């Protein structure tokens, strides 16, 4: 359980995180989504006390992270796959981390096996690929068998097999009743992994809701209609609630009215229809709709 209250971080005149109030509950995967510069990583660093909040507070299981007697047993954090000394072997990195909490050699072996690092455990981290670095970071996060896991972009740099592995791991950890707080810029990955979403834009929470609600609530259903009488049909459909987009001759994309309504209307006026398809909204579209006003670095030319 992670609870933030009025959590704020300012760097000089720039406000990176602006008064966040949220709770991350156990037993489910909470996705943390937002454009670059939205404040996701800063928020995660404040949770484990690496950055000090300018105002507000954040607690883990009721206490500030640093006040726990065994922090690594409370929270496992993968904040940055590069947060490892490149001159040390994977095994020795894990041993050094484990030693702080008196965690034994057996657990070190377990997390090495669990993350599939056996063959590289005695190699220096400097030669690791990004994917191996991520696996080592996840191994370190799991050392204390923590009830809460913070994972900042864990699938970054992983191959498809690795992405699936992280997805299964995260789902199973949540099923065991753990609190999982996962950030990713891959919206499609969130749709598959997360149960709940906190969407951040310009340091503020844009939405905090179950994934299904986010998708349903932020994209009207779109219907694609192909018809030789496209313009006539468009005129008939036009109204306050309905928007019609003409992408090419004879093809319409309509928002604000169900496919059945369009079909009935066409039948009523004896207009032939060659295609009538309901386009499913994706999380990605919902996300774009949500953050349209909150994107820090926009690519103007493409819009």
């Amino acid at each position, binding site marked *: 359980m992670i609870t933030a209250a009025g959590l704020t971080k300012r760097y000089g005149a720039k406000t990176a995180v602006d008064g966040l109030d949220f709770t991350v509950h156990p037993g489910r995967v909470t996705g943390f989504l937002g454009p670059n510069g939205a404040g996701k990583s800063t928020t995660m660093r404040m949770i484990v006390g690496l950055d000090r909040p300018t105002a507000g507070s954040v607690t883990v299981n009721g206490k500030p992270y640093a006040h726990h007697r065994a922090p690594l047993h409370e929270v496992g954090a993968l904040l*940055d796959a*590069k947060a490892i000394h*490149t001159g040390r072997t994977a095994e020795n990195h894990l041993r050094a981390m484990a030693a702080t909490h008196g965690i034994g050699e057996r657990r070190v072996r377990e997390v090495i096996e669990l993350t599939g690092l056996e063959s590289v455990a005695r190699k220096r981290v400097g030669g690791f690929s990004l994917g191996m670095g991520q696996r080592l970071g996840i191994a370190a996060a799991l050392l204390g068998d923590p009830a809460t896991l913070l994972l900042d972009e864990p699938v970054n740099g992983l191959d498809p097999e690795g992405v699936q592995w992280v997805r299964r791991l995260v789902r*199973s950890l949540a*099923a065991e*009743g753990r609190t999982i707080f996962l950030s990713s810029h891959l919206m499609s990955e969130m749709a598959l992994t997360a149960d709940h979403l906190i969407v951040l834009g310009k340091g503020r929470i844009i939405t905090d809701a179950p994934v299904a609600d986010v998708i349903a609530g932020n994209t009207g259903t779109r219907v694609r209609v192909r018809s030789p009488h496209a313009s006539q049909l468009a005129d008939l459909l036009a109204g306050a609630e309905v928007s019609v987009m003409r992408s090419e001759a004879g093809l319409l994309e309509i928002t604000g009215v169900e496919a059945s309504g369009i079909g009935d209307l066409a039948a009523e006026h004896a207009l032939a229809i060659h295609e009538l398809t309901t386009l499913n909204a994706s999380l990605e579209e919902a996300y774009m709709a949500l953050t349209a006003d909150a994107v820090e670095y926009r690519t103007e030319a493409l819009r």
Partner: protein
Amino acid sequence: MTTITPTPAAAGTAQPRSARTTTLGFGGVLRSEWIKLRSLRSTGWSYLLVIVLAAGMSLLLALTSLSGFGDEITAGMPAEAQTDLIVRTMTVGVGLTQLVVAVLGVLVMSGEYRTGMIRSTLTAVPRRLPTLAAKAIVLFLVTFLVAALSLVGAFAASSIVYAGEGISASVADPDVLAAMLGATLYLALLAVFSLGVGTMVRSSAGGIAIVVALVLVVPTLVQVIPADWAQDAVPYLLSAAGTDLFAMDPDDALEWWQNLLVVLGWVGASGAGAAVLLARRDA
């Protein structure tokens, strides 16, 4: 302890559970820092260099000294002069080994900032200061041990060469022991001082530049300032006080224990600055 497996467990039934039989403690942090220090290749190379430089420089100085002596000098050398010669010869390498331990001291912390390791370290020890204390203790103890070995090696190298000319000193001679202890203490404390500098500046290049300048450049600079206060300040410089811990010079302005206090003062200032900044800054 339950093993986490990547295969999905029965949804929503299990409770978070872990074998929380272990806690964060200073003993663990000490062991962690010991693992970190010995698991880096640069540590081994640096310490090996300290021993090789100390013994090698003494060997070279002993050989060149001998070739400069006539038989009439070595024949009737009083015991006191023999001891003095051996002490000077065995500590000649400190001028170089001090640079090695200073660089190592800086790197112990700046290396963590360079690689990002510091974020892992401070996540494991969120109160932060135990990490600094543990690093200082481990670095002091290991450097003390290696420095002591290097001086024993330097004494052996000097003694072997001089023995051919009948010059000798006992390793149990109080002057020899005092010089060994003084040089060893200086090197170990200089490493801890440098750790503090590395913590404050968080950069290997910057930290090394500062400690090398302080040890090599500042004493020369201060000596050429044509003012009384500059001359008065010289004995209180880190390297001057440190060198006086083992150099046999009766003209010293300060007593042995006063020199030790001066060195400890430098270490304390660096440690305090490091502690304040480490505790306050975002990592």
